[in-house]
């Protein structure tokens, strides 16, 4: 009994120690980050300019300010690190023990992990830090988030409207991608179809073309004067439409059509592969049992497609949710930023409003939404994975 208590106290002690170490390293990290913020902010003006140029926009200058070292921020980070370290104390110990036993495994994953940490996670956390700064580089806590989530009358963007547009955009796109892709895959998977390889090759074309080229081409297609879209309307006797003009619906539709063209081949290919892996005899057995075409589709095809389709749908919706190129290059948010999705709105906060803290806060909100979405759908996928077992 006393041994148990001793052990418990020992783990408790270890946790406190880990927490303390975490607080110290966190504080040090926060300090160096705060110092680095000067570099981040100084170069953000340069980048902002080149970025704006690279996306064909008019560049503006960021006002220059001194960086704040932000005592409040350091305390905040130190506390967060302490909690994290205390929580991770046990897993870390196990990981170290594991590392001693099987160094080969960790050597194999080390390059990937090191690269990811340096080039994906460190920039991410630097970005997170910026979300807590205002335009004068002062640590302002959650003020940026408050401004986004509880918009005042003076603010010229409404987060909830954009969120609604983004959700609608993602859902419509993914539904269209899956519906078109699946339908084509079902037709193409018929081995009796002649010229299958050719159809397949031609249908993959939109995927192979770089998406910024696609976006610019579709912007031309929807051009009021020169665009083939209006030429077609004229051919069937309709008045030309100012697609990328003052109407939210036509702008949104233009984006949607572009992204549908861009996105269905991926779903088609995934579905094709999954269809090929379904054993023939399952269909034969179902046919013997008197299952019709539809019954075979719902009882054999769909359940076996799910394990392949679910991850593709999750990935596809993440990509669509963050599809910057199409929205930015086709409609550009017209009219009055209404057709913007969250990611282009974040970019607007960065470029037009010249508020990097706000842009970072926006990006962080996008990240949280996607993280929640993925963890929710992940459960569904697990459920779907059991089909074969």
């Amino acid at each position, binding site marked *: 009994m006393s041994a148990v208590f001793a052990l418990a106290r020992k783990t408790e002690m270890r946790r406190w120690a880990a927490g303390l170490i975490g607080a110290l390293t966190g504080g040090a990290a926060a300090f160096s980050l705060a110092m680095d913020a000067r*570099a981040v902010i100084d*170069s953000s003006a340069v*980048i902002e300019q*080149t*970025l704006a140029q*690279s996306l064909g*926009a*008019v560049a503006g200058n960021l006002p220059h300010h001194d960086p704040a070292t932000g005592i409040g921020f350091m305390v905040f980070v130190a506390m967060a690190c302490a909690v994290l370290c205390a929580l991770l104390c046990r897993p870390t110990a196990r*990981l170290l*023990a*594991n590392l001693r036993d*099987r160094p080969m*495994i960790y050597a194999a*994953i080390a390059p*990937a*992990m090191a*690269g*990811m940490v340096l*080039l994906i996670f*460190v*920039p*991410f956390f*630097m*970005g997170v830090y*910026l979300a807590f700064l205002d335009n004068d580089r002062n640590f302002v806590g959650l003020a940026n988030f408050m401004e986004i989530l509880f918009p005042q009358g003076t603010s010229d963007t409404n987060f909830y409207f954009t969120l609604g547009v983004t959700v609608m955009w993602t859902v419509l796109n993914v539904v269209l991608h899956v519906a078109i892709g699946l339908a084509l895959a079902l*037709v193409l998977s018929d081995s009796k179809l002649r010229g299958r390889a050719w*159809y397949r090759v*031609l249908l*993959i*074309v939109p*995927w*192979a*073309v*770089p998406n910024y080229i696609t976006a610019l*081409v579709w912007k031309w297609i929807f*051009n009021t*004067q*020169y665009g083939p879209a209006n*030429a077609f309307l*004229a051919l069937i006797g309709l008045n030309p439409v100012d697609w990328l003009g003052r109407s939210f619906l036509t702008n949104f539709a233009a984006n949607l059509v572009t992204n549908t*063209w861009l996105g269905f081949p991926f779903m088609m*290919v995934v579905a*094709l*592969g*999954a269809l*090929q*892996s379904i054993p023939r005899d399952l269909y034969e057995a179902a046919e013997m049992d008197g299952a019709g075409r539809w019954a075979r589709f719902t009882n054999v095809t769909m359940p076996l497609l799910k*394990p*392949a389709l679910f*991850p593709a749908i999750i*990935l596809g919706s*993440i990509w669509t949710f963050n599809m*910057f190129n199409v929205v930015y290059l086709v409609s550009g948010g017209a009219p009055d930023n209404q057709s913007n999705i969250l990611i282009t709105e*974040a970019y607007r906060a960065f470029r037009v409003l010249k508020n990097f803290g706000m842009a970072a806060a926006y990006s*962080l909100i*996008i*990240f949280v939404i996607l*993280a929640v979405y993925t963890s929710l759908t992940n459960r569904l*996928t697990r459920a779907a*994975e059991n089909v074969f077992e």
Partner: protein
Amino acid sequence: MRKAARYLALTIVVFLTILPVLWVVKIALSGSNTFQGAELSPIPSVLSASNFLNVVGTHDAQGNWLFGRQLLNSVMVSVLTTLVGITVACTAAYAFSRFRFEGRRAGLFMFLVSQMFPGILMMVPLYVIMQRLHLLDTMIGLVLIYGITSVPFSVWMLKGYFDTIPKDLEEAAVMDGASPARVFWSVVLPLSMPAVAITALFSFMTAWNEFVLAYTFLSEETAFTLPVIIRNYVGEHTVQWGFFAAASIIVSVPVVALFFSLQRYLVGGLTAGGVKT
């Protein structure tokens, strides 16, 4: 009758799919940079190579062949990215597929999470990091960023494929006294060629098609990659549609060709990765 209807429907869909491409080809061949009016027909009325010749024939102030240099940059960056991405992803994916170790779930989760980070958030910090490492304006800097950003997707796909390879084969090799590295190199890798080919294709495309980072991190005209020059044809007020179309075709052709040559792997390679996540 039913069959004919199916072929007809399929042909219409295919036609609609490649219609925008045909239009671009038409503009590129038109020999002009402007439009007289809207035209619906995708059949070129003029056949002129002048847009292509203009795009390909650019020279810098010293009279060096600029386009050739930029093409070489693009090829180098893309090939190196593919090599880095594939090497890093293959070893990691194998470890994640075959071994159960502490931190495995966390590692896999990290790959997934990294897909959700919005690019806008990373751009400025990434610039600073590259500056600190003195990798701005260098090919290595771009290769590292592209290579690593392609890793998460590659690892997920390769791991999924490795999962489907029966363990018996490897066990047999181990019995014969092969080391883990040897098993991976001579048993697992040859069997996974479809997935490796697809992963390579995606890594290649990441680098070949990327332009925002390339434009931001490169300032020398001689260091540009091809997507950067395409963007230059589409200005704020005037768009050189003819040059844009010709350059777009030049940039797209290699990728489309790769896609076509690897497409028989594409179907199998992708799905195996999708089935087991």
